[in-house]
């Protein structure tokens, strides 16, 4: 039995079969096939949900290691582990009101938004450093960035309407064209990588070590 799980070829065949179960029914209107495909997709979704447990296990392992080895200020790691357990307990007490709702409002909600809000500061200092007319290319970057930044300030659009066509020209042509080029390149790369995985050229994805390859 273990030979089946250890066999690279067997796992590749399973992966290809799973791929075909989901891929082929999309292009043919056969209700029975579609129903089976939908159920298979749901099974895959449940498997994905279980993988979260692995992530939580890693967190616990790392945190306990920190505490056991007495690393500097290990109390913060202990607080992190307590937080995980507390949130699970709060959820069993009810998710509509009570401690679960308090934790959402006091901790998760504000910190989640601050986490991304900080990026505004990093971008602002990057703007000051990157938007310098060192050469012709940098000058092109500077001009386009300057005009779009100026237009994006709501007051500018209201008092200088003439800037809108210029800014929109930059965003709806150059920026959009680059987005298309980017989408095409990334899609091609993703398709090639996926085909490599299906053909067994990327065994690490399935968890095979270098020795087993």
């Amino acid at each position, binding site marked *: 039995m273990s030979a089946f799980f250890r066999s690279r070829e067997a796992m590749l065949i399973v992966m290809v079969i799973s791929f075909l179960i989901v891929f082929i029914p999309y292009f043919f209107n056969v209700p029975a096939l579609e129903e089976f495909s939908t159920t298979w*997709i749901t099974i895959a979704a449940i498997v994905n949900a279980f993988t979260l447990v692995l992530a939580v296990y890693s967190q616990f392992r790392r945190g306990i290691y920190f505490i056991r080895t007495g690393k500097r200020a290990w109390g913060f790691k202990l607080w992190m582990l307590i937080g995980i357990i507390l949130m699970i307990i709060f959820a069993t007490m009810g998710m509509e009101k009570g401690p679960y709702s308090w934790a959402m409002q006091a901790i*998760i909600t504000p910190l989640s*938004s601050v986490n*991304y809000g900080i990026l505004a500061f990093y971008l602002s*200092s990057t703007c*000051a450093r990157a938007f310098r007319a060192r050469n012709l290319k940098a000058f092109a970057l500077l001009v386009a960035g300057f005009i779009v930044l100026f237009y994006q300030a*709501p007051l500018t659009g209201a008092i200088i309407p003439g800037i809108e066509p210029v800014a929109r020209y930059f965003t709806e042509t150059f920026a959009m064209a680059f987005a298309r080029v980017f989408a095409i390149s990334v899609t091609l790369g993703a398709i090639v990588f996926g085909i490599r995985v299906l053909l067994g050229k990327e065994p690490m994805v399935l968890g095979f070590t270098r020795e087993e390859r």
Partner: protein
Amino acid sequence: MSEERNIFRMLAEIDRRIIYLLLFIVVTVPILRPIAMPLAVSPDTKQYYKVLNSLGPDDTVLFVLDTEFSGYMEIQSGVLASARLIIEKGAKMAIACSHPEATGIPPMMFSYLRDVMEKYDYKYGEDYVVLGYIFPNEAAVASSAQDFHGVVKEDWRGRPIKGTFLDGIHDWKDWSLIAIFSTGVRSDAFIRHYGLRGTPMVINCIGVMIPTTKPYVDTGIFKALLPSMRGGAELEKLINAPGPGLAAMDCFTFGHYLVIFFIIIANIGYFGYVRRRAER
């Protein structure tokens, strides 16, 4: 002359913490003391408004909160203004989340919109249902597009959805509109499994997604795009319902002008000090 060189050097090598502090101040002060500067409405927002305004009591909208809570702060004005407009048009709304953090948003939404819901007698079960976190991955989106009731049997409180207006929803064909409020968590999956099949969709996305989402508006997969917080503010102005978006526009103005100011002085410093030093 050496004093002039020091000023240029200071401008070229300005401490980034000064930029951080000033940005913090120019954003926080207008929030504490709003000014309410004028705002123009863009064609994107007008198109978005046109799509939502065409809804009626026979329409059913899948209102997807495809965002972590952090991203919700950016599209909050769009979410609230869109929900308000859908309620005013009498369309039915099923609210779904594709991120665990988004499950906290519906109570906030309905708390904010309580007055308009009472005014239009918008009732739970008859006019709207909150489905909760039903899109944890692409597989769930794909399954729901093919067999909605096979995937979703209960609302977010565990009550059966049988007997609500969702009885008429079987697959991707039955939705009048999918309104996605996205930070990019699962929006690609909706494009692939609903948009490509022809389900009408609109999107309110964060700023960084605009360049990559605009092509889909071009190709007709999205009927309209509401850009970031500014789009939400413009929509609030269009529907005459001032909210968090309009309140934030002062901060936008000052924040952008501050960055423009630093770009200008950085270039003055660059040409006055760094360039001259390199030439010497």
